[in-house]
């Protein structure tokens, strides 16, 4: 990467430079390498089959519906670790409402989304007005909500695991399958398209980047920094609600304790996808690749037949490598311009 010399100015963009502009290059290469790796070691047992492909795509989609907006929020410089509890609480609301109280499913879905909205507003309010780090604020709201969901569920129904009652119309929307492919992949695609449009093509997208890059400078330039954060916190929480609702319909039950995996998985997928941990930098393509990598590793390891105990070790190592590579690429990209004086 560092071997080519800078041409004299005025310069045209060289191949290396153009490649360095493609900021999701790192995660793209990683995804391919990891896919080939598991193709070799898990191909014989079906990793490359339709079922295997659907397996990792389904995982990536369910993670990605939340991870995509989480990535945008992280680009704006904030964390949301409360999504895990919002998933569980939304699932239990739909299950309790429909299965225990016999409410119409549409109403329970509206209630779950209202909870998501409330959590998003609560998080944004605390972050904007107390200036506390969102890491702590949302971690706290994650615990508060997780405990409340579990406690209320036990209090009402005597169990943390409640059956969902069929609505008829909700199933095709949330639990359809083609072959082995879940409908969640389509919902993920929709989330991706909206997020990519917003980040690249709208003023709001520019404000997201600026808010994470330098909030003070953004404020002075007239960017409504607090409103940017509010909208993104609502977006992440609503997405988590959506996944909770989807899982209640798909698995015919809600569990108040489910969803905690999303707390860090979503942030990990975003970081693997090249989102800068301190904000100000990242792409939707990168986040999508981060989700795909997560899906491939999760399912691929299963196909190799190796003990899945090692999954977390693998993810941890991947995270370190991803962060180091992304930093390297970014520094090279920034220094190339400077050295061309």
């Amino acid at each position: 990467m560092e071997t080519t010399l800078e041409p004299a100015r005025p310069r045209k963009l060289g191949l290396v430079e153009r490649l360095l502009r493609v900021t999701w290059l790192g995660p793209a290469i990683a995804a391919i390498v990891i896919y080939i790796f598991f193709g070799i070691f898990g191909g014989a047992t079906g990793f490359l089959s339709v079922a295997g492909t659907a397996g990792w795509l389904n995982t990536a989609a369910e993670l990605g519906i939340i991870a995509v907006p989480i990535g945008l929020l992280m680009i704006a410089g904030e964390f949301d670790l409360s999504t895990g509890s919002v998933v569980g609480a939304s699932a239990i609301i739909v299950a309790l409402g429909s299965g225990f109280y016999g409410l119409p499913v549409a109403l329970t879905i509206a209630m779950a989304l209202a909870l998501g909205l409330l959590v998003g507003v609560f998080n944004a309010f605390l972050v904007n007005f107390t200036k506390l780090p969102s890491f702590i604020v949302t971690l706290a709201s994650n615990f508060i909500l997780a405990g409340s969901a579990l406690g209320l569920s036990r209090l009402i129904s005597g169990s943390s695991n409640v059956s969902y009652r069929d609505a008829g119309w909700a199933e095709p929307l949330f639990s359809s399958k083609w072959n082995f492919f879940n409908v969640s992949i389509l919902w993920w695609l929709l989330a991706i398209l909206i997020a990519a449009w917003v980040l690249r093509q709208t003023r709001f997208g520019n404000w997201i980047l600026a808010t994470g890059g330098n909030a003070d400078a953004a404020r002075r330039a007239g960017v409504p920094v607090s409103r940017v954060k509010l909208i993104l916190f609502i977006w992440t929480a609503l997405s988590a609600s959506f996944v909770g609702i989807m899982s209640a319909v798909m698995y015919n039950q809600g569990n108040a304790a489910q969803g905690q995996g999303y707390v860090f998985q979503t942030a990990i997928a975003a970081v693997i996808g090249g989102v800068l941990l301190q904000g100000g930098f990242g792409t939707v393509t990168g986040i999508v690749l981060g989700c795909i990598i997560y899906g491939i590793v999760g399912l691929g390891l299963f196909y190799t037949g190796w003990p899945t105990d090692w999954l977390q070790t693998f993810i941890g190592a991947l995270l370190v490598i991803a962060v180091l590579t992304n930093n390297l690429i970014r520094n090279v990209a920034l220094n190339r311009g400077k050295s061309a004086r």
Partner: protein
Amino acid sequence: MTAPLMQLEAVSRSFGNNLALNQVSIDVYPGEVHCLLGDNGAGKSTLIKIMSGVITPTLGTIRFNGEPVTFSSPRDAQHYGIGTVHQDVGTIPLISVARNFFLGNEPTKGWGPFRRLDHKTANRIALEQIRSMGIRRVTDAEQLVGTMSGGERQALAIARALYFGARLLILDEPTAALGVKESKVVIDLIKKARDDGIALVFITHNATHALSVGDRFTVLIQGRSAAKFLRGEKSREEVLNLMAGGEQFETADHGD
């Protein structure tokens, strides 16, 4: 002689019991550079915060084009044509030159949900404007601002303020973090803006930089305007003494 664009008349500002600015009067003329000199804590930051609408004075009057005005916010001051270039230059390293240039004023096309950024126009104008500042090394509006040098970033911020209609530019120590060559780039930009009829307020610690472009000088010491003079009225030694004199008298921290 032309009329001043902006006048501060006996402006004071206190924070609690601390009088950060004590009856300071300043006239800023179009096509002139007004240098604001003084040590840390002398009241320079308070003064530019008042001029750019971040805070309001406790006492005193601000006139713009002869009319008394009150700035309710930085945005409000910007509407009058007051542009501030801060020490951190108001630019964001990991987004493109064009995205920085138009931040908060992004051009769009289309309507309703299909309203989107007009990247083409933004890129073209940003590149034109920054190159008109004499920055020729920037050849691509999509390059990251982080690839630019400190002087080039100052140029971007100045170009930005001027493009969005600034008639008065407040430059808060634009040369403080720059090397000799880079400082010259910024000094040349100040001269260019002055020749274009812009009114400039130039805050600096560097007497050489001040004397090379300043038309009017105000030295602040402990929140008071300790000296006011025109170009050529004081020698370099006298200016240095004034600035150092302020240091000797500085006893309390006026933390502005």
